[in-house]
């Protein structure tokens, strides 16, 4: 399998605090195409910082993040915007849909920024919403959807533009068990069908149980990296 993301000696230190905080310490990891990975660890272990850094939302203090043979840590901000738009899908903890757009408009939004043709964009958005079981909610705004439904729209949005990988920061944290399982089923299926690399940060045992690789961070460093055979 092809390596999608490679980090080398990744460190991140926050110096804008009273005492410097070493959020990431010398992390070197590789993520292969189609992997379903959970980043776990206690609060403050650096899960979110790790996702932010490999997602190009934050810059490392030291080290490399190589995606498609390019070290994104050296990219300018404007290049990073473009890179995120074309290569990465994001799912956030608090759904974070654009409230004034309908479900189908939210899913189309990234493709719109990518300047995809309108017909192709609409067809793909419909297809993704069907895949997450929301074909009857295409024109509903987020305020009229449940938490679970909103998070499914967020997943459809993240996957619609066929990114190289999807970063999900505690996607099930605000969901009840039924919605969480439903969402995980959908993500597992899409991971297989679309061969999209999924990387989660999570505390949620339900997510951890589904993952085929679990990386445990403690105090910003990799404590364990386990590959779990599900077959």
């Amino acid at each position, binding site marked *: 399998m092809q390596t999608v993301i490679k980090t080398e000696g990744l460190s991140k230190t926050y110096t804008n605090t009273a005492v410097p905080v070493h959020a990431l310490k010398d992390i070197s990891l590789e993520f292969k195409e189609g992997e379903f990975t959970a980043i776990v660890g206690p609060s403050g272990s650096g899960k*979110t910082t790790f996702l932010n850094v490999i997602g190009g*939302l*934050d810059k490392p203090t030291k080290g490399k993040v190589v995606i498609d043979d390019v070290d994104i840590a050296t990219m300018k901000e404007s290049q990073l915007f473009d890179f*995120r738009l074309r290569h990465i899908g*994001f799912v956030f903890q*608090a759904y*974070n849909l*654009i409230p004034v757009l309908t479900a189908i408009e939210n899913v189309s939004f*990234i493709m719109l*920024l990518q300047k995809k043709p309108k017909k192709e964009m609409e067809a793909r958005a419909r297809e993704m919403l069907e895949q997450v079981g929301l074909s009857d909610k295409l024109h509903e705004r987020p305020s009229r959807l449940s938490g679970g439904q909103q998070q499914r729209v967020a997943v459809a949005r993240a996957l619609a533009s066929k990114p190289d990988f999807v970063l999900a920061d505690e996607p099930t944290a605000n969901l009840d068990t039924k919605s969480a399982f439903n969402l995980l089923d959908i993500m597992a299926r899409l991971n297989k069908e679309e061969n999209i690399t999924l990387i989660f940060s999570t505390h949620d045992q339900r997510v951890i149980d589904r993952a085929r690789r679990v990386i445990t961070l403690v105090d910003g460093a990799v404590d364990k990296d386990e590959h779990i055979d599900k077959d």
Partner: protein
Amino acid sequence: MTTLMIISWRNIWRNRTRTLVIITALILGIMGGVFSAAMRLAAEEQQFEDTVENMISHIQIHHPEFIANPEAQYRIPDGEAIAGDIRGQNGIASVSARLVFDGMAASANMNAGVRIKGVDSEDEARTTKLDELLEEGSYFTEEWRLPSVIIGRALAKELLVETGSRIVLTFQDIDGGIVSSSFRVEALYAVTSRRFEERTVFVKAGVLQELAGEPGAVTEIAILLDDVDRYREATDELRAEYPGLEVRHWADMDPTLHYSLELLDQLLIYLVGIIILGVSFGLLNTILMSILERVRELGVMLSIGMKRLKVFFMVVVETTMIAILGGVAGLILSFFMIRFLNHRGVHIPGGEGLEDFGFAAVLYPDLPTSFYFEIGGVVILFAILASIYPAWKAIRLAPAEAVRQE
């Protein structure tokens, strides 16, 4: 682009009450500004028309000594020929050559000091519209045995006379001798200046020239221009052409009026400026509040790859949309408000007392259509300026932090 416009449009209606409040503030601000401007223009036009166009004209020419000593001996040499030359020049609407000097008017009961103006009735009608200012009587058409005089309404009250009454005008002829002659009051004119009404009487030039002892004598040439805005250039040209004569424009002759109009202009600029600034800050506050309320959403937009320039543009479009809504509604309402007030007139409280100083008690506000477009443009310009700070705040957000904001 279209989706950004749709997002902007929907965003402004997320908090309907707040948007409606700021739109109402915009409407009221614009109506206030338009009303002030229309009243200022009406006051200026009324004062200008009454004082300058009906009384002193745009430019006057005299003998240099005449200003201090308005006597018949200070005549303009070849006055009628000079008036004829000026009449033929480009940019001149009309010229009235007059024989003017001070004298006394006496009725059977009272007398008063007056300025006697001997005029050509047609030239005077073209220059000061004296024929249109008559409140009663006719304009130099009566064929009485006594020559006609047209006096002000206020002077008629003072002398206790009416149309048809006989009055005696006494003055010095060109040799300094005292001349008295009877006239019959043919008409009473009315202007907003009580002082002018009390002080100025009109007779036919030929009659006065004969009485003064010199046919064709001229002491004053009053000039009305096609374009009043050219008054300074036209005055300079006439000064160069007639270096031996005193050429003055209306602002020289009535500096008080000139400064009061300038003051009104300045006050209007300050007033409209304050209104627009106030409304702009209200708009800035509204948009800033709206930005601070959706930090997380903006963080998501920036995270997924929406460029900062597009976010900036979205905020500017939102503000501009509010400005356009409030601006268009404000201008339409202002247009109908001015139409209504122009028809009905605006009564100035205590205005009757100001008539002595040339101010009308009732003003009829009006504005050229171009003004509405200009003020609309200014409102949109200030809205765009007001959106810069909130838009800057929006694009300064760090996406990773913004998406986690509660």
